[in-house]
């Protein structure tokens, strides 16, 4: 058993994969917390779909330019497309009100259909496509690792450094505007950081499941927390744990790492949701009357002694 673990940790491929999984698990729930707070849980999904077009465009350009390997521009293409897509989605959200929903849907489906189409034009195979759709963490190169680490640092610095301001905007946009906060700039910041997170996490779970890593840990955390800060840190811890354990499982059992990670996270949600009533009851046990001690609004003539 111990020698098995030593062998796993000694494998350079697995070392890189573990570091990337750790980073992604840590980073994805940061922005996910803001997205859940403003009820935009599916934004990451939308950006992921658009990023696929970016991957395919990068691939096409790489093939046309005769670069080797011909997917050298895939990740930069994804970053670019995700950034553009996120900003467009934010602008649609801020301006269009009723038509926003439909506009977003068009963007999502256009993104994925365009990606598949352009990928086939660029000479990519279905196997290549599946790698981007469901992740290919086992093929992480040192260059990918450096890029992931750099993007993770950016997300952490912005997402945690500006927490108070981002909280204010996500919690009550009207109040933030009335406080003279640069609401539009902060909204764009959230969209950009979400786009960076998507491209970081894409490597691990693929564009179709990318949003799960951002949202599910937050969904689990908020079952047991009462504060925003605690929700974010708990979600980050959950993210790291599910990513690393999911990856470790697939080292021994041949399964898709991305799918395993997401299924683990959702299983954890189900478990916590089932256990929560017991936890909450234990915490409330022995505490006093939850109602505030305030005088009655009406005069009671009988049965109203206090």
């Amino acid at each position, binding site marked *: 058993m111990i020698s098995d673990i030593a062998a796993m940790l000694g494998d350079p491929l697995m070392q890189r994969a573990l570091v990337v999984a750790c980073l992604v698990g840590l980073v994805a729930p940061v922005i996910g*917390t803001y997205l*859940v*707070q*403003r*009820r935009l*849980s599916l934004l990451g999904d939308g950006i992921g779909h658009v990023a696929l077009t970016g991957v395919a465009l990068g691939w096409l350009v790489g093939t046309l330019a005769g670069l080797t390997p011909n997917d050298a521009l895939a990740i930069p293409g994804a970053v670019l497309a995700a950034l553009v897509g996120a900003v467009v989605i934010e602008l649609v959200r801020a301006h269009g*009100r009723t038509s926003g929903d439909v506009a977003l849907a068009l963007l999502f489906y256009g993104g994925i259909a365009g990606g598949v189409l352009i990928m086939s034009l660029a000479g990519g195979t279905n196997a290549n496509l599946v790698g981007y759709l469901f992740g290919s963490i086992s093929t992480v190169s040192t260059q990918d690792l450096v890029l992931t680490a750099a993007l993770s640092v950016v997300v952490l610095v912005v997402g945690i450094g*500006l927490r*108070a*301001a981002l*909280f*204010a905007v*996500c*919690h*009550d946009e*009207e*109040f*933030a*505007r*009335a*406080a*003279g*906060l*640069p609401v539009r700039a*902060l909204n764009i910041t959230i969209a950009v950081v979400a786009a960076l997170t998507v491209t970081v996490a894409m490597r691990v779970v693929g564009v179709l499941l990318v949003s799960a890593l951002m949202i599910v840990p*937050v969904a689990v955390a*908020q079952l047991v*927390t*009462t*504060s*925003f*800060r*605690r*929700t974010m840190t708990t979600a980050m811890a959950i993210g790291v744990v599910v990513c690393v354990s999911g990856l470790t499982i697939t080292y021994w059992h041949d399964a898709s790492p991305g799918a395993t990670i997401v299924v683990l996270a959702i299983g954890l949600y189900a478990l916590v949701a089932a256990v929560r009533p017991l936890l909450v009851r234990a915490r409330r046990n022995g505490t006093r009357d939850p109602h*505030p001690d*305030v*005088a009655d*609004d009406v005069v009671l003539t009988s049965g109203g002694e206090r």
Partner: protein
Amino acid sequence: MTIALGGVPIVRTVDLTIGEGEVVALLGANGSGKSTLVRALVGVVPAEHGSIRLLGAPLGRTVPWHRIGYVPQRVSAATGVPATAYEVVLSGTLHGHHLRPPRDARERACEALASVGLGAEADKDVRTLSGGQQQRVLIARALVRRPDLLLLDEPVAGVDLPSQQSFAVALADLAATGTTILVVLHELGALAPLIQRAVVLRHGAIVHDGAPPAPQPEHADPEHVHLHPHDDDRDPARDDPGLTPTVRWRG
């Protein structure tokens, strides 16, 4: 000043100046444009024509936002993710380009919560607080800046009478220290002794500006049921461009 929402003028040719230290009530029926006027004052909705000056500065970056406290009309202070009352109040310490809370933010937030009688609730999830308590959290969020100008949009809607009275006492203290207060109200209620001047809006225009008027006789009747469908008068035009402010609850 004129404010239009969805192309429909909601507030028409309002010319209003509030002097330093005044306590002014903005009254009117549902849909008369009170909330829209206040929201335009703080830049949440744009004014179609005319100009707005806050504390002497034209609406925009030069406004000293840290001296202005705004309490929006809200049914709930909760969102998708848990947040404690303290965290919500802390967000009130940010303004303009100060995107991080100041050093003494923690004491100030606790002080503001204590001043609305929620000192013991600071670390509770706002979702677990009652509607009236959530409203008080939002008031604390405005007070945490120690504002010189306080704009309140129906701050006592859904708040029980004892809390209204303690809120009136808190406002009286602020007014006594020279805070300028503009408060949107349906009826003067517990705040009546404070109000020095009342502005009444009807169909988006000022129909009275001066001493607080007496309520409609039917409103004074103790049997009269007060309805507070507050969400309905937020933006009548935004949801349905055909709905003009002339639509009122009572014919």
